[in-house]
Each structure stands twice: as structure tokens, then as C-alpha cells.
């Protein structure tokens, strides 16, 4: 059913339809509307779940960890400082192979404190073992939550999945969303069932101490699962497309005017919308621009990316985050991926954009585009106010 809804409301609706048995979260802007929505649904008996009001995000993550370990489907959501406070548990959930689903309403990190959008928060747990998916639109965020439960709970996977949606832009934006009905969701997301759980009739020990004789293999197995995810995510995306008759790309990446593109933007999340408009403009002027959208950042779809960039001459990686002292994280990953192309590798430049909610306009993308013809850059900040920098000196 098509509805004109706020992003957070849409997420609460779709999570409800996925029937989590335990929901736990702690308030932080811009995640709050999602969990307030779920709390109301539990209060109204629309959702049969235990809603656990915790005293911190560390405990929110720990509660869903414990509940998921009893074999129950769970949900949590956070943002920014909340995700950073959760970080220790985030790693643990993946290491324990518990398929929790979490929404991250992506937001800048302190200091300075800033509640607006960028993607620095998720990058702090990039290496945790979670599947990291990025939504471009509210519709896509809705659809990714359905796929997230399917992917994470797949017995071949058993890993947590994070759906990233840009704070405010998607969480507080309004959009016409095709909201799957309960029957449709039930068909796609079947009840969670596993033997890997705390069960008095089959007592398991979870969370061993593993010494040097065992540890590295256990970590390697997570890495191996991520390799398998490179076929499992497209499987789930294809099934989704078949049932719901929508969805672009293969679940890992999506191209826009890529076929003959010579200048390719690579980006994640809502900024892809702005870049699409820019690409249209460039195309109208006869320029062969294109967009490669990364939908799955972990696993990182290296082979698909290499294939998609086989004709590109210049690549602009547009990062909404920065590894301070290094580069934009997506730039680093992408550079590693194209290094296997040898002499055929395109020239890859890295750009940092929109931190702390700084507006990303067509003009910003134009600026990126203009840099491409010049010498290669690896960490170019776009739209800095020179006068502020001069003042600070």
C-alpha cells in the first residue's frame, strides 16, 4: 500500500511487520522516532514484543544480544554517540554469530557535538563483522530491513545486519512509500528458528575463551561467511525483486549510466540521489558521467566493483566520513579493489563531503567532477569555508 510517510515511521512499521520478539533501544537524535513508534505499537498491542527500556546503548545492544541468544528475533536502533558507546557489544554480537538487526540513523560524531548527518558513526564499527547495508531512499531503507532479517538469519550466515539510513535526510524526510502488507512480509520473512541458542534441554556454552590455538580460525570463519554473503545477498535481493516487483541493482551494488561512463562517482546512501541528478545534468551536456552506488559496504563487493569500473577512466569516491589522518574509508576500500586491475585500473580520486550535515548540492558534485580532470587527489575536502579556516589560524 502506498503511503506518504516519514522515514522513521516507515521503519517502525516495517520492523513491526518483521515481528521481533524483543526490542531494546536508548534514545538519541535522529533515531528516536523509530523506537518511539515501536514503543507505541507495543503499548497498543499491535506488536507482540518485549520492549526493554534500558539505561544506555551499551545495555540496549547487550539486551538484544541476550534475547537473540534465546532464539528470539530482535531489533535495536541507534546513531552516532550511541553506536560508539555500543561498539564493544557490536563486535561481540558478530563474534557470537547472533543475527540481530539494527538501524543506524547515520549522524556525525563528537567533538564538536553535531546531530546532523554524515557517515562517520558506522565507520567506527566497520571492522566488527556486521553486514553493513546503505539505503538511498526511504523505500530502500524499508526494503532493506526485510532483506536484513533474511540475510542475517540465513543458517549459512548467522551474522548481524545493520541498515544505515542517513539521519534526518531519510529518518525525518517524507516520501511516498510502498509499504508491504503483513501477509507479504510474513511470506518473505518467515519465523526465526535456530538450534544455536540457549536451551535447557540442549545446554550450549556461548562465548568461550579461545587461545592462540583457536582464535584466528574463528575470526577467519567470519571473513569466509562474508565471502559467501557476496552470493547470498544477491540471492535475497533477487527473491525480493521477484516478490515485490521493485529494487534496482543486485543487492551489492547498483549502477546508473554506467555502461559507457568514463567518469564514475562512487558513493553510499542518500547522496546517491543528488549524484543521480548531477549525472543527468552532465549527460545532458554530452559528458559521459555515471554513478556506482555501493549498497553493501560489508561484505565489500570487490569483484562487482572491478567489473562495473572496467570502462571507467576516472573515478571519484565520495565519502561522507573520514579516517582522520588517513583517507575516506570508501576511498581506501575502492583503491584496494581496483589495484587488481593493473594497468587497466582507472584513476581513483577521493573526496570528503558533507560532514556534520553540510549541504551537498549539485554545485558540490560539480566541484568534485571538475577535480577529476586534474591531477589525482586522495582526500580532497569539498566545500570548505576558507574564511573559517583562516580565522582559526
Amino acid at each position, binding site marked *: 500500500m502506498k503511503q506518504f510517510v516519514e522515514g522513521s515511521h516507515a521503519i517502525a512499521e516495517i520492523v513491526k511487520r518483521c515481528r521481533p*520478539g*524483543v526490542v*531494546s533501544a536508548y534514545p538519541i537524535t535522529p533515531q528516536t522516532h523509530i523506537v518511539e513508534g515501536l514503543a507505541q505499537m507495543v503499548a497498543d498491542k499491535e506488536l*507482540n*514484543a*518485549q520492549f*526493554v*527500556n*534500558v*539505561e*544506555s546503548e*551499551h*545495555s540496549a545492544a*547487550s*539486551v*538484544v*544480544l*541476550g*534475547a*537473540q*541468544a*534465546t*532464539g*528470539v528475533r*530482535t531489533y535495536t536502533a541507534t546513531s552516532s554517540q550511541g553506536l560508539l558507546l555500543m561498539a*564493544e*557489544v557490536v563486535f*561481540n554480537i558478530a563474534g*557470537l554469530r547472533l543475527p540481530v538487526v539494527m538501524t543506524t540513523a547515520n549522524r556525525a560524531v563528537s567533538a564538536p557535538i553535531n546531530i546532523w548527518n554524515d557517515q562517520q558513526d558506522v565507520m567506527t564499527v566497520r571492522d566488527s563483522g556486521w553486514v553493513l547495508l546503505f539505503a538511498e531512499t526511504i523505500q530502500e531503507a524499508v526494503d532493506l530491513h526485510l532483506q536484513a532479517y533474511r540475510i542475517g538469519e540465513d543458517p549459512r550466515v548467522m551474522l548481524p545486519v545493520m541498515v544505515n539510513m542517513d539521519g534526518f535526510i531519510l529518518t525525518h524526510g517524507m516520501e511516498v512509500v510502498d509499504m508491504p502488507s503483513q501477509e507479504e512480509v510474513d511470506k518473505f520473512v518467515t519465523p526465526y528458528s535456530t538450534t544455536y541458542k*540457549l*536451551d*535447557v534441554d540442549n*545446554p*550450549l*556454552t*556461548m*562465548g*568461550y*575463551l*579461545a*587461545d592462540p590455538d*583457536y582464535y584466528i580460525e574463528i575470526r577467519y570463519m567470519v571473513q569466509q561467511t562474508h565471502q559467501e554473503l557476496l552470493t547470498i545477498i544477491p540471492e535475497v535481493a533477487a527473491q525480493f525483486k521477484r516478490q515485490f516487483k521493485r529494487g534496482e541493482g543486485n543487492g551489492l551494488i547498483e549502477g546508473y549510466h554506467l555502461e559507457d561512463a568514463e567518469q564514475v562517482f562512487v558513493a553510499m546512501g542518500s547522496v546517491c540521489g543528488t549524484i543521480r541528478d548531477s549525472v543527468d545534468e552532465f549527460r545532458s551536456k554530452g559528458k559521459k558521467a555515471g554513478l556506482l552506488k555501493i549498497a553493501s559496504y560489508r561484505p565489500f563487493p570487490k569483484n562487482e566493483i572491478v567489473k562495473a569500473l572496467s570502462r571507467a577512466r576516472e573515478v571519484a569516491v565520495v565519502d561522507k566520513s573520514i579516517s582522520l589522518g588517513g583517507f575516506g574509508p570508501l576511498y581506501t576500500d575502492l583503491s584496494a579493489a581496483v589495484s587488481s586491475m593493473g594497468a587497466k585500473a582507472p584513476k581513483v580520486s577521493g573526496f570528503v563531503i558533507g560532514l556534520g550535515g553540510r549541504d551537498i548540492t549539485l554545485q558540490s558534485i560539480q566541484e568534485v567532477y571538475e577535480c577529476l580532470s586534474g591531477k589525482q587527489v586522495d582526500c580532497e575536502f569539498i566545500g570548505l569555508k576558507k574564511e573559517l579556516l583562516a580565522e582559526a589560524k
Partner: protein
Amino acid sequence: MTQTLFKPGHTACAGCGQAVGARLVIDTAGKNTMIANNTGCLEVFSTKYPESAWCVPWIHSLFENCSAVASGIEAGLKYLGKKDAINVIAQAGDGGTADIGLQAISGMFERGHDVLYVCYDNEAYMNTGIQRSGLTPTLTNTTTSPSGAGSLGNPRPKKPMPEIAAAHGIPYVATASVGYPQDVQKKVKKALSIKGPKYIQMHVPCPLGWRHESNMTFDVAKLAVETGLYPLFEYEYGKLIPRKIAKIKPVEEYLKVQGRFKHLLKNPDAVKQVQAIADYNIQKYGLNAEA
């Protein structure tokens, strides 16, 4: 208690009070029990992959979050409609309880989860090499509160963790000692018969960290109680029920058998200071059977 749910063959030190205490707890709780365990000696010596001493469902997540994990387990079991048939226990050392885990415990108490929390109090961070915690007693020599020319050891008193637990208005709080196994069993049974959050803090000597003979574990534990330094009591729905001491002993008897207090023995003022703590406990909790 024919078959134990905590198998021997773990790697605890000889005479480890916590190993005995943990077995007492799980064997009293029985097989319909799930445990969330913080990081610490108990977790490390009982679950070295691929061996596990635990014959009940058991999960270790992190150092400070067993109460939140247990809250999640309880919520999961409630959702499944299985909570009434299953006990949930969160357990940790003194450091994982009174220091780094305090916020999560407070959250679990305040939310009213039906979980028994057991703190195995060996009065320091043993797993990382005998550093002081908030439950390290006054004037104890630890590796981070060493005695020296300008120090008599840990300068601060034990954090009143049982009172902090009781202040949450939870239905049952108790202290216990591994030196009194039947008392431990009685308290665990009582706790599990009550719905809601429960807190038991059990004194468990650590021969390595306290530097006492490994065959002295029970004697040391008893001396702590008999001197008044480890008062045994319950707060049942807020009402104090002390376990009285038949014959109170001077604190020297406890101090002199442990290396961690050796530096006090040649210092009468220091011993007096420790005696004052015992006297205060005896008065506060009404421990003297003859009074």
C-alpha cells in the same frame, strides 16, 4: 545433589573459593537455569575452548554487561512464554559488579527483571593480576594499591554494594560466604523462589591474590565472618536479617593468615583501624549473638 552441573577439570588455581562458590550456586539452582557471565577468572577458567565446565546454557559476552545480557535472556524467555520454568542468573566478580558493571546492574534492578545476580567477591581484579577494585577492603595490598613507605595499601573502604542493591527496592539482597555452604544454598534457594531482581554477594577467598595457603580457603572465609569483617545478612523486602556470630574473633586472626595484610601486622594503629571496621559492622548489622 548427586550430579554437578559444573564439571571439574577447569583450570582454576588450587583452593579457588570462586570455583567452589560457582558450583554451589548452579547445583542449587539446578538444570533449568541459564547463566550470563561477565569476564573474569570464573569465565576464563571454566570455558577455555573447546572445553566448558558448564552443563547448563551459559553465555559470556563482555566484562560489564552480564546484567543487560541476562535482562535480554529474561525478555526472550518471557516472549517465548518460558520464563516461569527457567531461572536466569547473572554472575560476575567484584570488579565486574561494583565498578565497571554497576550501571548495567542498576538498570536491571530498576527495570525489575526476574534475574538473580551473584557477585563472587574476591576483593580485587584477580584475572588481570590482583589490582584493586571498589570492593577491595581498606588497607589491602594489591598491585595497584601497593603498600610502601608512603602507603598502607588501599586507602578506601569497600563500596557498600549490598546497600546499593537494596536501595533499588529489590525484594532480596544477601551476603554469603563460601565458608558456609549450607547458608549459601539456603540463600540461593530463597532468592530463586522470589520473583524480580535478586542480589547475592558471596565472599570467595583467592589463595593467589590473598596469598594464603590453598588448603586454608574455608578457614580464611570463616575467619572473615567470625571477625565481623564480612558480615552475613539478608535484606528481605528491605528488612535486615543478620546471621549472628557465636564467638567474635579479633581481626588479627584473619589478617595474619594472608600475605595481602602482612604489612599491617607490625603496625598496631593499622590493625586498630581494621578492628574498627569490624566493630562497626558488628554494631550496624547486629551480628553479636551474645549482645
